[in-house]
């Protein structure tokens, strides 16, 4: 068996074919065509979750805008937890990356004179969000995917699920993966590996995220010895459709949509977010940052000013005054989604919305070039934490982040791989170990009384309870205990599906194990952070505490598999911590 | 550089024939296949008809029309055989269909030339 165990050897192995992974692949192919790049993805690349992004991508291009303003908006949006050197690099490179995508064919929306059009977005002082109607992520991903087809040096492994990274002596050498079609478990080696596996919204029950967003890369890195950073910061988006959790993009509010409580009152004015005006005002009211808007919702619920729906309390998003013309040209997908999934027409009716888990600010700890502390291991995209997002990501910063840091990680990995040696023989044994683990411990388990879906439901309920918009120490501690119990239960859950080919029960089991790791890290980091900052709001510590907590949290995995949280200073260059002011 | 291929030209003739068949054929077929034989419309006088048909312009138009419509039919029928009946001997079918259209065209030239 050992001759077939190592399937192929590459220079750089990219795990994930979403926006970040594809951008990295192209960057490598362009920097050094000599290198052999492979992209492994558990779904076909164009199915990756980047496809769902609606609103847009921020990059300074308008004449009245400046890089410093983008930087400042991002820093204050992050509640001063973002690393300022990273944010500076990000803001500088974002416009170039977006232009590069334009040259690759991305159908950006345009002004009448043919120049790029930009729209407003939450928490931003200037209009700087590039958009392709309200299917920005879809167009970006397909543009990247189609462009990547041009490069013959990029090998793709589609529908191949990575289960483990091969690490020896502090260096990464590749990964072990299951081919979903065949069920074959094989090692694919790479001198450098870039994790671009996206977010982990599925840790929670109610999320905008797709089924595949199970945080696999975070868990892979964590188990391979790379720490996770700022895991306590989970973004709730204020406007998701009840039941499905489908996102109604922030662009609706940028175009002038209003948030109304059950009395038809624009309640955000009561939460220090400015005064209502008929036309949208930047960094004010509905264009405030996501953390503050989601928190306002909770207070409205407490005051009894929300409406009831079969899926809990909701407020309403009002787009009626925008008119059919604006909705159809700028927000056609929103109309399509509302008609389909809520059977309402936003041209004439109010859209019921509630906050929904949307984005993971935390992730695999990397430096400004995407490098993790494990040599040869890089990360980019939502799965990484550079960090530019700090305690709260601004809408439309994630898509350019994928591009900027995808490209950076790609170039850095290419350079590393050019100098690195081929994989040592020992990794063969590691691969064999992993095959054994999967075949015996996961596939071979007798179908017991426990069911994977039940444990998953319990985990999601636990996380919602413990790590919602508002948190407390005791609740998080209780949640962490509950997760530990679920870990034990998972060991007893068998996989009933014995078929090799397309065994989605097996992948669900592996994903659940990953999510339990992540949930644990979220709660452990959250417990340590005894303050309220950005998306991490503690009822028992309601204020921001810069003296103790102007730090990142790194979660390492101890040899006994327990997590250990350690501090890391925040990089501050030119913008000393200040108050976050919106609408004033 | 674009390679030279016959498919585009055949397709062009197919389309031309389709237009002809859609625009000219209904009235011609209606008159001569139904209305006149069944007496709904009085039989046109033979001399008049001979004059109309024998006019050089009519002859050219008819020839073009007949040839294009035959190619149209042959082409369409060929694909109907492939798809509808799942005929596997594709080359043979093609030769048969276009061959028939070719013979039809020769016949058309023959008939029309005699009037000229």
């Amino acid at each position, binding site marked *: 068996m050992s001759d077939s165990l190592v399937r192929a050897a590459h220079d750089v192995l990219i795990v994930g074919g979403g926006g970040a992974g594809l951008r990295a692949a192209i960057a490598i192919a362009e920097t050094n065509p000599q290198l052999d790049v492979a992209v492994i993805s558990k*779904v*076909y690349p*164009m*199915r990756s*979750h980047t*496809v*769902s992004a609606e609103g847009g991508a921020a990059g300074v291009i308008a004449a009245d805008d400046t890089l410093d303003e983008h930087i400042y908006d991002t820093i204050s949006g992050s509640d001063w937890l973002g690393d300022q050197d990273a944010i500076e690099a990000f803001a500088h490179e974002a416009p170039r990356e977006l*232009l*590069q995508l*334009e*040259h*690759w*064919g991305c*159908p950006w*929306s*345009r002004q*009448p004179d*043919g120049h*790029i059009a930009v729209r407003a977005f939450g928490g931003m002082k200037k209009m700087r969000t590039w958009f392709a109607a309200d*299917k920005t992520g*879809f167009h970006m991903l397909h543009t990247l995917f*189609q*462009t990547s*087809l*041009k490069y013959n040096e990029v090998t793709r492994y*589609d529908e191949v699920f990575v289960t483990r990274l091969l690490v020896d002596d502090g260096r990464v050498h590749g990964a072990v993966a299951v081919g979903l*079609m065949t069920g074959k478990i094989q090692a694919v080696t790479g001198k450098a590996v870039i994790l671009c596996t996206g977010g982990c919204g599925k840790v929670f029950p109610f999320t905008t995220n797709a*089924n*595949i967003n199970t945080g696999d890369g975070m868990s892979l890195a964590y188990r391979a010895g790379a720490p996770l950073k700022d895991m306590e910061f989970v973004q709730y988006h204020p406007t998701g459709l009840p*039941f*499905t959790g*489908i996102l109604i993009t922030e662009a609706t509010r940028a175009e002038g949509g209003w948030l109304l409580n059950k009395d038809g009152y624009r309640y955000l004015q009561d939460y220090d977010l400015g005064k209502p005006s008929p036309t949208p005002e930047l960094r004010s009211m509905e264009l405030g940052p996501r953390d503050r808007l989601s928190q306002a919702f909770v207070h409205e619920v407490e005051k009894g000013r929300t409406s009831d729906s079969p899926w809990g309390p909701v407020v309403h998003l009002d787009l009626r005054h925008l008119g059919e013309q604006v909705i159809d040209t700028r927000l056609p997908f929103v109309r399509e*989604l509302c008609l389909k*999934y809520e059977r309402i027409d936003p041209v004439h009716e109010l859209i019921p919305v509630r906050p929904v888990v949307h984005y993971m600010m935390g992730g695999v700890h990397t430096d400004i070039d995407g490098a993790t502390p494990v040599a040869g291991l890089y990360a980019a995209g939502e799965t990484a934490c550079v960090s530019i997002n700090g305690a709260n990501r601004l809408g439309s910063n994630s898509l350019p982040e994928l591009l900027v840091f995808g490209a950076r990680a790609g170039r850095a990995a290419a350079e590393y791989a050019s100098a690195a040696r081929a994989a040592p023989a020992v990794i063969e044994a590691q691969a064999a170990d992993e095959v054994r683990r999967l075949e015996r411990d996961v596939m071979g388990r007798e179908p017991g009384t426990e*069911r994977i*879906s039940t444990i998953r439901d319990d985990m999601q309920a636990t996380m919602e309870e413990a790590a919602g918009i508002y948190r407390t120490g005791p609740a998080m501690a209780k949640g962490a205990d509950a997760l530990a119990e679920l870990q034990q239960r998972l060991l007893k859950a068998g*996989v*009933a*599906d*014995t*078929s*090799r*080919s*397309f065994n*989605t*029960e097996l992948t669900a089991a592996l994903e659940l194990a990953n999510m339990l790791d992540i949930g644990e890290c979220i709660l452990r980091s959250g417990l340590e952070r005894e303050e309220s900052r950005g998306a991490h709001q503690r009822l028992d510590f309601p204020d921001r505490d810069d003296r103790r907590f102007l730090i990142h949290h790194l979660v390492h995995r101890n040899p006994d598999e327990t997590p250990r949280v350690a501090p890391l200073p925040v990089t501050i260059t030119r913008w000393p911590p200040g108050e976050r002011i919106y609408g004033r | *550089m*674009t*390679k*030279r*291929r016959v*498919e*585009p*030209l055949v*397709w*062009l003739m197919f*389309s031309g024939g389709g237009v002809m068949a859609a625009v000219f054929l209904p009235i011609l077929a209606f008159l001569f296949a139904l209305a006149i034989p069944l007496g709904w419309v009085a039989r046109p006088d033979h001399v008049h008809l001979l004059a109309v048909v024998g006019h050089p312009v009519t002859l050219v138009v008819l020839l073009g029309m007949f040839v294009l419509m035959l190619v149209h039919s042959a082409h369409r029928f060929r694909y109907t055989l*492939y*798809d509808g009946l*799942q005929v596997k001997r594709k080359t043979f079918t093609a030769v048969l269909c276009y061959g028939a259209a070719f013979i039809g065209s020769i016949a058309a030239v023959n008939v029309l030339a005699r009037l000229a």
Partner: protein
Amino acid sequence: MPDSIRLEVTRYRPDTDSEPQRQEYDVPLRKEWTVLDGLNHVKNEVDTTLSFRWSCRMGICGSCGMNVDGEPKLTCATFLTDYAPGPVRVEPLANFPVVRDLVVDLFDFMERLPRVKPWIIRDDDVTEVDGEYLQTPEELDAYKQFSMCINCMLCYSACPVYGLDPTFIGPAAIALAERYDLDSRDHGARERLDVLIEHEGVWGCTFVGECTRVCPKHVDPAGAIQRYKLKAAKESVKAFLLPRGTR
């Protein structure tokens, strides 16, 4: 409204089955449930061995295509109530080889996609990006419809020509070629024509038109293909008429 509905699901396990079988499941019939929700209910509560693809559950990732009562559909955008009182037949997309249960093999399409060169091809060789290529909203509109394809493969499943002759490049790939041809920033029309003018290119299509009818994103591949034929014909006439030098 009855409170449950029967799904008749096609199962196929390559390790044990010699051909697909049918299995029935009753699932709750709820107003807001899609066929995909029904399948997920089965997967989570009834029979964990059922396999199918899905991800975004919002009609954009293109992974959940299946034949529902014989029609290719995105199951995440197809509501159970529209089929009440049932039963609803759920089968893998037609015309593709079945890998497992409701999962089909897309190898053909993925392998074909690069052949139509779906990327911007320029005459000028700009490597440094400074400033955008201008494109007016009208120029954007010219190709926008064809850029909406989510690669869901419903059109392939509806096209009998593809079913009969899998070498046919097929509707979505041709629509994508058209998308780049019509893009004012692209100069690659000639290169793509060389591919599509081949026999497996546009000529197999007999304009059944089903591809367009089933497309959930209103891409109109049927139109794209016929227009391509016209374009190919024009170019060929030119090639025949004009002496080599002037082409």
